[in-house]
């Protein structure tokens, strides 16, 4: 196994599938609904969360022995807030249009339950390397769902992917639109994101029956 031991690989791979933060733990739903109408913001959001969670987990893990447990939430918040501000400023500097599009949701990464959850559940009790892997793994698990949802919502809702009209031009009626196809306006609305996430959960649980909770 070279670089990663078996245990470490599990830290990365588990959150991608059977311990996914969105579909299994049902955390971080709000942002998954809000910014997945298109693929590009979904990916930017995923990358931002990977950065914040990976680095944040390391920082918290390094400080885990000196944080007084009574004020640990505040310390955690400060760490997230700092990292989120960095992401926000970078986006504003280098991708202004995108940061406009994502607007408040980059700032709201602070309140993303996945991040505080991993700090509390993992970084406070594990070393920096393992915490880093855990952070990357969970953020990737979050990102995968975002990208899947973003893909379907942009494709079916706007007929585009990354802004390219892959299904033809709806105005001049080329491609699929020539035979009467129309974009599904419901896909662009947030409720549909919830339904798409629900369908992913459904598929996942019918593939792996162990995930179904006892009623």
């Amino acid at each position, binding site marked *: 196994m070279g670089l990663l031991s078996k245990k470490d690989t599990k830290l990365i791979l588990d959150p991608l599938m059977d311990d996914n933060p969105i579909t299994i733990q049902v955390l971080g739903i709000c942002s998954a609904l809000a910014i997945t109408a298109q693929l590009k913001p979904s990916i930017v959001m995923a990358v931002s969360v990977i950065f914040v969670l990976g680095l944040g987990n390391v920082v918290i893990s390094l400080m885990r022995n000196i944080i007084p447990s009574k004020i640990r939430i505040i310390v955690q918040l400060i760490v997230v807030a700092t990292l989120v501000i960095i992401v926000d400023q970078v986006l504003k500097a280098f991708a202004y249009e995108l940061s406009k599009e994502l607007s408040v949701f980059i700032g709201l990464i602070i309140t993303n339950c996945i991040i505080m959850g991993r700090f509390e559940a993992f970084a406070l009790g594990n070393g920096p390397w393992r915490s880093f892997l855990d952070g990357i793994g969970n953020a990737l698990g979050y990102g995968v769902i975002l990208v899947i949802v973003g893909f379907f919502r942009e494709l079916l809702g706007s007929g585009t992917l990354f802004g390219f009209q892959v299904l033809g031009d709806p105005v001049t009626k080329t491609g699929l639109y020539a035979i009467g196809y*129309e974009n599904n306006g419901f896909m662009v609305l947030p409720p549909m994101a919830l339904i798409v996430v*629900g369908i992913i959960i*459904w598929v996942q649980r019918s593939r792996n029956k162990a995930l179904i909770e006892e009623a």
Partner: protein
Amino acid sequence: MGLKQSLHKMKMKYEGTKMAPAFNAIHTFLYLPNETTHNGTHIKAADDLKRTMNIVIMSLVPCLIFGIFNAGYQQNLQMDVVERAAGFLSTEFWNLENFSIGAWKVLPLVLVSYGVGLLIEFIFAVIKGHEVEEGYLVTGMLVPLIVPIDIPLWMLAVAVIFGVVIGKEVFGGTGMNILNPALTIRAFLFFAYPTKMSGDQIWVAGDLKNTLAGQPDVLTGETILGSLAQNKEVAFSLWDQFWGFIPGSVGETSTFLILIGALILVLSKIGSWRIMLSAIAGSLVMGLIFNGVVAQGWIGESSKFFALMNTEFWNHLLIGGLAFGIVYMATDPVSASQTNKGKWIYGFLIGFVSVTIRVFNPAYPEGVMLAILLMNVFAPTIDHYVVEGNIKKRAKRLKVKTA
């Protein structure tokens, strides 16, 4: 050997296999099963789920037939082929030409609705290994009646798939759904393809491009709610509205036939009269409030709500899908409230909210759809408090007695 015997043989042959539910469904749909319960203490009642569904369908048939004629009539009226119908039995309305045009447009809707919906039901029954349930029989009939005549068939198919899978199967199939499946399908269409579900170009059939020169390209016909929302004069008399000679979704225009359907449902004790009555009361109350607001002069002619608010309170029942929704959708026994007191509250709020949405949000002309869906969600809550209240009342009585 009759059809029944062959079906029975087929059923025996496939018993225990994966496809068994599919064959059973066909068998029990057409015939009484060969084996029925004979002795012992069982409840023997004729009104099982299938009979219930069949009666609802029978009560819908007049609306469907009227819808077919009306589709042709509206088109012919615009093309000046027929005159305006004078009474309910007018031959300008009930003629073969209207029927053939209408049937050509409406029957495909029915076929797609039933075909796609039942296919999904069969697939789920086979995968999950349960029997095919009869729930879709009514939904499949309701769907073509509540969509605009010009809806593209593939959109209807997509919506039916969505409605049956997300609205019903994920919750566990017939009897477990939270929302009325037919309305889920309509709501999906409404939000997904708004250009095909509202506006003034879709209510009259006829995409007449490439016909004779001098003919219109598209026939337009605004629904009454549509014109009222824009503060325009209504071009239809009250009798037209009552008989149903107005543009609208396929089968919901005729208040008269809906009343007959309501009578069938109430007399056969399948539809809840409590819900119907209280929903009518709710819409009348809200209509009266709006009339009062106008009478008080709080709102002037210039207001965009004026025409809808000024509509006589009882007139709301004749226009739009309010009557149809109240009779056929609000009374859906699965998604409505179960307790008697709950039914009064549930129905009243449906009427109340329908008229409110209708007046205040001209972008959502069909308030009744959203109102019923909203109250579907609240129905269990209403029931919960009714039951709790009853328990509390009885507990109090017990205390008085023992004290």
